[in-house]
Structures are given as structure tokens and as C-alpha cells.
């Protein structure tokens, strides 16, 4: 199953949210990173036909998804960013409703719902009203509904937002475990989620692809472009200090203060003299900071 996005453009009035974007998605997990307004959610909305494209094509195995209509939607599982749900329904009733919309047979639906409730750790609250759910529980319920029907195309918008660390790991691992034979597009702000499970990372910048590749190759390209610098911690409050001068000119991916020493991790092509190669591995956050440019 292959999705081809060809010269996709989406305008909101004078604003261009996606600018002639072309991309091919095969089996695997694709992580999309980008600043707010970079076009992540717009891309997902066009892929789910929730928004009307301005121009371009989205083809599934050579056929435009608009022509496919319900045939395409049968293959899609979508987890929106917005946590809108039927507040007065119980979690189980909600999943049964979505199963009905997804044309699942009752028997299959029941079996799948039971296993998804376990996978998302919602079994205990299955018969509770959604109105009483925390943000994390809602997030897991939305993930469960997206996975109903075992869709081959999974579009997940911020799937781990609002989850506690344990649940985040659990959800991340679950997504990874079901990825075989599926195309999963995962848009998020949390780079570490993508870093650990994505086969490919797409960095969007102002509606265009700024960089694309697997996390290791992206990190490899930055090996000499990430350095750490040490300053006396007092320089933090001094506007005329060396640290302040560097902070104004370069991108800082991390700051640590300990024992009166300020350690700043800088990312860029022309870094100042005196830095040490970065401790530990190059992270996707470093890569994102580097490739996203001035955003």
C-alpha cells in the first residue's frame, strides 16, 4: 500500500498552509515534526479528507482518495488532536458507535473493543461516562477508536499529548508493535516519541518539507554541528556576558546549571570556538532545531 502526495497545496485565504508538498509513504511509521502552523494538522486533515485541498493529488496505489470515497475511509484510522467526544456516553458505548460507523460486524467489534480497552488500559473505566475522563484517558480512548477495525492507514495527531510517562511509553510501544503491514503517520511535538519508533522523520517548515530521513541518518548529519559550552552560572543574568552574546546568535538546544557552571548545548553550522563535542547521542530535538531553521 503506497500513498503518493503530489504537489499538494492548501490555502486559507492568503495564507498557504501547505505549499506544493510532494511525498511518498510506504509501509512503516512516519513521524512529522514541525512548529505550530508548519502544516502538520493540515496535512492530516487533507489525508483524511476533512479539508478541501486547493490543488494537488493524494493517491492510494495510484487512485485518488477523493475518487475512492468510502473505500478509502475503510482503510483509515484517525486520531484527531481535539479531544471532542460524546461526554454522556460510556467509553465502551462510544467505541461500539465508532465500530458501527466503521462497518464492523458486531461480533468482531466486541472482540476488538475488549482487546483495545486492555491495550489502552481503559478496561476498568469502560462503562464510565466519558465526561469524567481525564485528558490522558480521553487520549487513550481516541487512540483505541482509531485502531478499531485494524486500519492499514493510521493517522495520529499528537497521540501521546497529555499522557503520563508510563502511559506514553505504553502507547508508543503499542503503536510500534502494530505497525507491521501498516502506514502510520504520526504528528507530534514530542520528538523523543518519534525518535524511538519512527522509521522516517519528516520535518515540516512553512508548509514544505525541510528535511526527511530516518532518525539515525538525520543525527549522523549533525555529528559535528552540536557542541557543549561551559560558562560561569552568573553570566546568565548579565546582558553583556559572553554567554549572552552567544545565546543571541546561536540556537541552544539545552541548558543545564549545576555547581555554579552553566552548560549550554548549541546547534549550528558555524559554532564559536572552545566548545566540546556533545555528550551522549545527537537527539532528534537537535536535528529539528537545526533543520527547522529560524522558526
Amino acid at each position, binding site marked *: 500500500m503506497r500513498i503518493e502526495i503530489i504537489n499538494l497545496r492548501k490555502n486559507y485565504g492568503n495564507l498557504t498552509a501547505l505549499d506544493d508538498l510532494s511525498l511518498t509513504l510506504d509501509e512503516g511509521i512516519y513521524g512529522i515534526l514541525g512548529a505550530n502552523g508548519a502544516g502538520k494538522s493540515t496535512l492530516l486533515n487533507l489525508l483524511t*479528507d476533512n479539508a478541501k485541498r486547493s490543488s494537488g493529488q493524494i493517491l492510494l496505489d495510484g487512485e485518488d482518495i477523493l475518487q475512492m470515497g468510502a473505500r478509502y475511509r475503510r482503510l483509515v484510522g484517525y486520531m484527531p488532536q481535539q479531544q471532542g467526544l460524546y461526554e454522556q456516553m460510556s467509553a465502551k458505548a462510544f467505541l461500539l458507535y465508532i465500530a458501527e460507523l466503521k462497518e464492523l460486524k458486531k461480533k468482531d467489534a466486541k472482540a476488538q473493543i475488549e482487546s483495545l480497552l486492555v491495550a489502552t488500559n481503559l478496561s476498568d473505566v469502560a462503562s464510565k461516562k466519558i465526561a469524567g475522563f481525564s485528558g490522558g484517558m480521553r487520549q487513550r480512548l481516541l487512540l483505541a477508536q482509531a485502531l478499531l477495525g485494524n486500519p492499514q492507514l493510521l493517522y495520529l495527531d499528537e497521540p501521546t499529548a497529555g499522557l503520563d510517562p508510563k502511559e506514553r511509553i505504553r502507547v508508543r510501544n503499542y503503536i510500534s508493535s502494530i505497525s507491521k503491514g501498516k502506514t502510520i503517520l504520526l504528528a507530534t511535538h514530542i520528538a523523543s516519541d518519534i525518535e524511538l519508533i519512527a522509521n522516517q522523520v519528516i520535518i515540516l517548515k512553512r508548509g514544505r518539507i525541510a528535511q526527511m530521513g530516518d532518525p539515525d541518518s538525520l543525527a549522523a548529519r549533525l555529528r559535528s554541528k552540536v557542541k557543549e559550552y561551559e560558562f560561569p552560572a552568573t553570566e546568565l543574568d548579565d546582558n553583556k556576558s559572553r554567554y549572552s552574546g552567544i545565546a543571541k546568535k546561536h540556537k541552544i538546544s539545552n541548558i543545564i546549571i549545576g555547581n555554579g557552571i552553566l552548560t549550554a548545548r548549541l546547534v549550528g553550522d558555524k559554532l564559536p570556538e572552545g566548545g566540546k563535542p556533545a555528550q551522549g547521542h545527537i537527539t532528534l530535538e537537535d536535528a529539528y532545531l537545526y533543520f527547522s531553521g529560524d522558526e
Partner: protein
Amino acid sequence: MGEFRRVLANGKYALFFALLAALNIFVLYSGQASKHYTSNILSFGRQYKKIISEAGSGSLNDIQKSLEKKIQDFEDAFLAMDDNPEYPNPAFQPGSSDYELASNEKQAASSLLAQAQYLKNYPEYLCLIQERKERMEKFSFMRTESGFALRNVEKTARDFLPLLEVDVQFGSNEAITAFTEHKLTDYLSLIFLMLFCIRFIEDERKGLYELVHSLPRGRRWLLANQALILAALSFAITVFFYASSIACLFMLYGGSGDLGRPIQSISAFQTCTMQISISRYLIYFFMFRFCATFLIALAIWSMLGCFSEIKSNILLLAAVLATQYSMYTYIPEQSYLNVLKYVNLFSYIHVSPLFASYFNLNIFSRPLNSRPVISMLLLPLIVILIKYCLRPRYLPTTSTATLRLPGLTDIRLRLAAKMRLFGFEVYKILVIQKGLLVFVVLLYATQNSEFMPYTQLTEVDRQTEALLLQLEGEISQDKIVEIAHMVEKSKLKIASFEQAEQEYKDGEITYAEYQSQTRGEFLAIIRNSALDEVQARALYLQRTSQILTQKPWFLPERHFKSCFGFIDQERLKQNKASFTKQHRLGILSIMSVCLLVAASYSYENQSGINMLLGTTPRGDVQLRLIKLAASFLSTFMVWLIINGFEVYSLCQEIPLRYLQAPVQSLPMFAAFPLPLSISGFLALVNLIRLLNLWSVACFIMLVSKWCNRVAQATLISIAVFVVPSVMYAILGFENFKFFALSMPVSVMGMLVADFGSMRNCIVATLVMIFCAVAFIALIEYQNRNIQRL
């Protein structure tokens, strides 16, 4: 200040406020035009002013005489014009400006003549009150009576006694009278206040509650500011709705006139016991109006904050207002429960009657004037409500947790496991959107509705009914002959009475003989009139029966009239309950459909889940079709409950065989063009009702599609589809007639000969269906072509 800016910055509210104020003036002017039978109210106003200035300060007798002469001159002129098309003054012809001027002058003179007559009779009216008291005191049973009736009469006489010294004067009264009678302003203010208060609550529910509540000024300071905003709004309403009305009326009728005259100079204030001038009355009125508007605003605000869900709050508010209105309208003035009638929210909504009318409350059989009581309660009530509204509040609790009854949870889940998509949509309407509650309330309201309201019958009507019952069945030639015999016999009897009268006058018989010979004359005359009516009907039905497949019947028609709400125009006032019944049921249907269907799309727009649903295979056209079907099903249930009860009530009152008679047997449907039996007619009418109600459901679905909040969709639907019907059918504002959907939904109102016909009814239904289909197509078009983000 910040809160003022935030709330008042919403341009939509300012626009809506301006629109309501403009609507108020428009209805006020057009109402004046129809009241004075003129198409040019400005011209009428000018003539009115002219006549008043001509009348000057002469005595009442002189004024009356001059007005009578003026009217007589006009009548002679009009008469001469009718007789002679070549009237000497050709400009004075119908349609010409002179004709309109003359007609307006005559109307103005008539209005002022009525005023002069009232002023002349006023002292007599006051004396009558004193006489009534003396007369009642003479009755021994009244003297010993320690109850309310006698005390009330005595107190009334005591209160009116000082008015004997009041010197009522002739002057320009029309503006104040119109201002006092114009109730629409009160309702428009109420509507605006409700919408405005909902905005406060909506802000709270937008998830800002926690944030705002955690700020230093986010609690009592904020609430106090909101209370101040309501006070400012009350002031704005008093100025832009009320003061602007009276200013426009003064402009219309050529100025305020002499405001120093006693208020009793205006006939609308005949029973006012306050010894004040008109100017003073206006000052009191506006002060009271401002405070009362503020009180109502506070009451609405406090009611809207009772529950966490906006819908529940709106339901509570609607229930309280409906209860208060019922008590205000239906409790009789003399009832021992009349405290509930007067110490009522609607006494503060309609302020004018408080000054213009005289009522005594029954407090443990002691009469107590209602005006001071209601006035004195105003400020304490405001203080109590402010205190209540500024109380410390906590996060609204949402009903969460496990569904409390484990058994119920199980049933619900088992039900959900078996439901198909249609079942889920119905479940959403009934359970999630509280449709079940709507049905329970609807069942209660329907069961308590008067489906067969009492119709006042004259003696002739009663006799006619009796004759129709006697002759019941197909109208055959034999029956026509029999009626002719009866008529002949009756005429002979009446002739004998006339002969006896003549003989008595000629002195041929004694008074005793005359009395014995004319015994039963009154009844005979009535019977004769009834026979004439029955005979005329028989002949008419026989003539028009050619289109029928079977012969028309003689049927007693009282129950049909009562059920269908067909009342002669002349008896409309006495039988208003029957006339408005069809509209009331229509309004009830539309209101229920609004509450059931308004959430169909707006609930999903509000929760934002529509994006998710759109990505599922059935979440597109199929889901929308199923939503339509579920809305139609709930609408069908509403229709079934209301119309089922109506048909059942009718069948309880009449023998079922009547249903087989041709509908043309009923005089009000004598010209009905289709050859149908009464049962067929009922089926047709109810089918049209269903189609029209389904159309209304489609209109509401479009509103729902456009709204992002359930409360917004519900309120807009009610404002657009229910309020005009209430304005027309319940409150009697004729201008709203063409916007009243209760007309096509109840159907019967469109079949009355005075207003419409079967053709009109079919045209209206086709227009409704066309609009409904167009609206559904528009929803589909939007889903396909409009950017959803």
C-alpha cells in the same frame, strides 16, 4: 471596566439590540395604524393634533358637541359620495389624498369623542363605586359576611373616594394610551435579557472557569462587575426600548400635550387610585421600569447558574417562566390565590397594569392593594438576588463517575452492543441530548392540554344542536320535507303570538289571556331561528352535494368546532381558547422539535467530533441520512403524541359513526373541494401536519448545522420558529402572522374560510417541503464544497 469592555465588545449583541429596538418601534407604529383603521398613521397623528388644538380649552360639553358635529359632517359627506359618484368635490374620492385626510380626521375625531365621553362619565363611575358599596352593605348576608368580598368592596370605595376631587381634563392621550397598551416591548426586553445572561454563563462554561476563578479579581469582583453590567443593560433597555417608544409616540401624536393633567384623564387609567399627574406617572414608571428590568435580569442570571449544563439551565428558566405566566394569566382576579397572580415575575415584566389597574390581594381574606405590595417588594428582591448571584461559587460539577445503577449500566451497554447506526442516533437524541425528558414533559403538557375547549353557545346554537341531533343522518328529501313542515308550524305559532299581541293592543283580550296565549313565545322564536338555520343548511348542502360520493349528513357540530378551532369572527373573543387551541398545539409541536433536533449537528460541532466521524466509511452521506431519519422519527413521535391525543379526544366526544359522514356536512367545510369523509379529512389534515412538521425539523437541522453550540442552536431555533407563532397566536400581534409556523403546522388555521382555503394550505405545504428539501441539499452542498477548517 475590563469586564464591561469584554462583554460589550461583542458587535453581534449590539446589532441584535438595535434590531429589537427598531422592531419594537415598527410594530408600535403599525399597531397604531391598524388600531385607527388608517394606512397612514403619520397623517392620522397630524389630524389628531389639529383637532385637539381646535378643541382648545372649552367645556367638555362643547368639545363633545363639536366633535359629534364634525363626525356627522364627515358621515354625510361620505354618504353623499356613495350615492352620487359625481360628488361636487371630485378630489374627495376614495384613493385620493383628500379622501385619506378626511378619513383620518374622522377617525381622530371619533377617538377624541370617546375620550370626551369617558371624561364626562368619570365622576359617575366614581359615584357608582360608592353606591355599590352602600348597596352591598344593605344586604344582611353581606353585613354578616366577614370574608374578602365585602371587605374588598369597602376598601375599593375607600381608595376611590379621594378621586372624587380629581379634575379630569381633555387633552392628547393617545400617546400614553398606546404606550401603556404596547406589550411587545416587555417581551423583547425579556428575550434580550435571556440571551445576554446566557452569554455570561457560556463564558463560564468555555473552560475559562478555572482560570478566571484563580485570579485575584476572578470571583466576587467579577460577579459584581457582571451585576453592574446587568444594571447598565437594564438602563439601556429602559432608554432605548421604553423611552424611545414614548418619544416616538409623542412625535406621532404631535407632542406630549399637557402632562400636568391628572393621570385619570386617560381612560386606560380609569381605575388608577394614585393622585398624580401624567408627568409624575412617567417619572414613576421609568424608575420602576429600570428597577424591574434589573430584577428580571438578576432572576434570569441566577436561574441560569443553577446547573452545570446550559441546556438544563435553559429548561429550568423556561419552566419557571411558563409557570409564572400561567399563574399570571389564568388565576382569576377574585381567587383566594390571587397573590400568586400578582406577586409574580410577570408583574415586573408588564409594569403598566400595576399603575393603570386597581387590584386587591387576598391576604387571609383581607384586601391589600397590589401596587404598594409589588412596589415595596422590588428593592428587597433585588438585594436578595444580588446577594445570591454574588455568592461564592465553585467549579460546576459534571455528572461523571460510573453510571450509578449497575443494572442500568449493564442494560445500556447491552443495548449499545445491539444497536445499529440508526439506533445510536436515536440514542443520542433521547439519552445524550435529553430527548426522553422532552417527551416526558410533552406527554404531561399534552395530557393537560384542553383539546376540546369550551365554546360559548347562544340559545339559537343550542336549539340548532338539538335539532341536528334529532335529524341526525343523511339529508334525504323526506327530511327536507319534514323540516319544511316544522318551519311552517313554527311560523304559524309565531303568527299566533303576533295576533294575540295585536288583539291585546286592540283591547279584544285581557292581559291574562294575552299572557296565557303568548307563553313560550321566546322559546318559539329561538326555535324558529334555529329551524331557519337548519333549513338553510339543508338546502345549501343539497346544492353543493354534487361533488360528493355520498349524501351529506345532519350532524351536531359543536364538538367539531371546538376541536378544530373554527369560530365565527363575531364570537372570537368569547371563544378565544378554541380559536388559539390549534396554534397552541402547533407551537407545542414546534417547540418540542426544536428541543429534540437542534442538537443534531451542533452537538458534534460543539464537541469537535465531526472531524473524526468524517473519516469513517459511514461518517459521510450515510450518517447525515441517518441523522435525518432519526430527526424525522423523533418529529413523528411528537406529531403522534399531540395529534393522537387530539383525535382521541374528539372520538371520546362524538359517536364514531359521525366519522363516516362527508366532511362537507360540517358547515365550516361545506366548500371543501375533495370528496372525503370526516375520517379521511382528519387523516389528510394530520398527514399535512406531519409533512409540515418534518419540514420544520429540516429548517432546524440547517440552524443546527450552522451553530457551533447546542444552546445557540436551540435558542436561535426557538427565536426563529417558535417566537413569531407565540407573538401572533398567544399575544395577538397580527404583524407576526406571516412568520408564524404554527399556522402551517396546525393546518386548521389555514382552512378557515376567513383566512385561507385548501388551495392556500396546499401551496403553503409545498413551499414548506420545497424549503426543507432545499435546506437539506444546502447541508449536503456545504459538506461537499465548503472548507471545513
